[in-house]
């Protein structure tokens, strides 16, 4: 059987959902029989590859770089799974929306900076006006909420996708779980 080409990416989130992924523990070995991880913080791959079957996205979209990469992911992946509340609702990442990017930069790079008070202009990407969930930028195929999404829910979801069956997501997890 051909293995599923799986990508995972960590955008504007805390990596808690990726930690939860690792919390599947020995079940990862079981999944490895069916899955090839082709792009992820877990593997050393610089460019997002082509012909990915499923990409799991953790985190919201908060920079121009996030927007660029999510569009590339959509082009190169058959399916996208939004993992965790940040990817689905904006969650903690979107808390700054209530004040605006300008206020946050002012706080971080001026008010709280003792030295070198200036806006970041090199290397770091530019912040968007507001943080948005994935589905406001691209089509998302599956939503798996949680903060972080429990390992059991990720396992059940992946197993169901591998076996091509439907599952009741709301019996496994919810917003804020």
């Amino acid at each position, binding site marked *: 059987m051909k293995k599923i080409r799986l990508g995972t990416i960590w955008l504007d989130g805390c990596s808690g959902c990726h930690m939860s992924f690792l919390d599947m523990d020995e079940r990862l070995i079981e999944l490895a029989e069916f899955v090839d991880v082709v792009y992820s913080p877990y593997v050393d791959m610089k460019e997002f590859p082509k012909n990915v079957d499923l990409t799991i996205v953790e985190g919201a979209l908060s920079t121009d770089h996030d927007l660029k990469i999510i569009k590339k992911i959509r082009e190169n992946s058959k399916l996208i799974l939004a993992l965790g509340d940040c990817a689905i*609702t904006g969650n*903690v990442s979107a*808390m700054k929306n209530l*004040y605006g990017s300008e206020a946050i930069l002012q706080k971080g790079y001026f008010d709280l900076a003792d030295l070198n008070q200036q806006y970041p202009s090199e290397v770091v990407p530019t912040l968007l006006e507001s943080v948005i969930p994935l589905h406001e930028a691209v089509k998302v195929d599956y*939503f798996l909420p949680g903060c972080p999404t429990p390992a059991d829910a990720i396992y059940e979801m992946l197993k169901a996708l591998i076996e091509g069956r439907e599952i009741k*997501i709301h019996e496994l997890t*919810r917003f*804020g779980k």
Partner: protein
Amino acid sequence: MIREKVRVKKFTIDGICVTGQSNQTILEVARDNGIEIPTMCHLKGLSDVGSCRMCIVEIEGRHEPIPSCTAKIKEGMEVTTSSPKIKAAREMILSMMFSERYHTCSTCVVNGDCQLQSKSVELELSHSFTPYLNQRFEIDASHKNFVNDPNKCILCTRCIRVCDEIEGAHALDLFGRGLGTRVIHDMDEPWADSTSCTSCGKCVYVCPTGALYEKDISEEEIIKKREIVTELVRNRGQK
């Protein structure tokens, strides 16, 4: 006082023949007959205002769905409580509640004990269909025991109704219009300065979300005694 004559009326809900008294609502008759309709702003013991629209049902011959908590029954009406159209409308209503203000479950003090959150599970809402509005309201934490956070308010007005109808103080009411509507104390004064508030805490108990909560209590310890009102009304021998 002129009393309205109560009559028995026959009609159908989801094809099931039911009977009710003419002063009853569709929701009451449905629940008497074990037919579940999802609700949000409704709380047994308080008057119904139909503010959330969660309990909408279809009525044969009517163009638009109507809230079942405020609609009185009629002889021969045919009510449908669940259809693809109703399901889609309820999901959209819930979406709008989530996206209108700042409902971040993971940082909310009532995480796990919130009726907006549990409704998302019940209606299997995968995500918000409407974009987030990112509105910000000032939090009123002036009261010694309680906090009013309009950012988490869904404007169900349960707090206003309980304060008026059960406590008899009417310390709370709505202020403003549309998206900017807020629950205020007295003439929009800080909660601590409200002369009509008795600090009984009923508003906090009936609040479905984390808009009204008790101070210095962690997410793990928080208990919302929402059924306390139903209990009170029963003990007082009202309906």
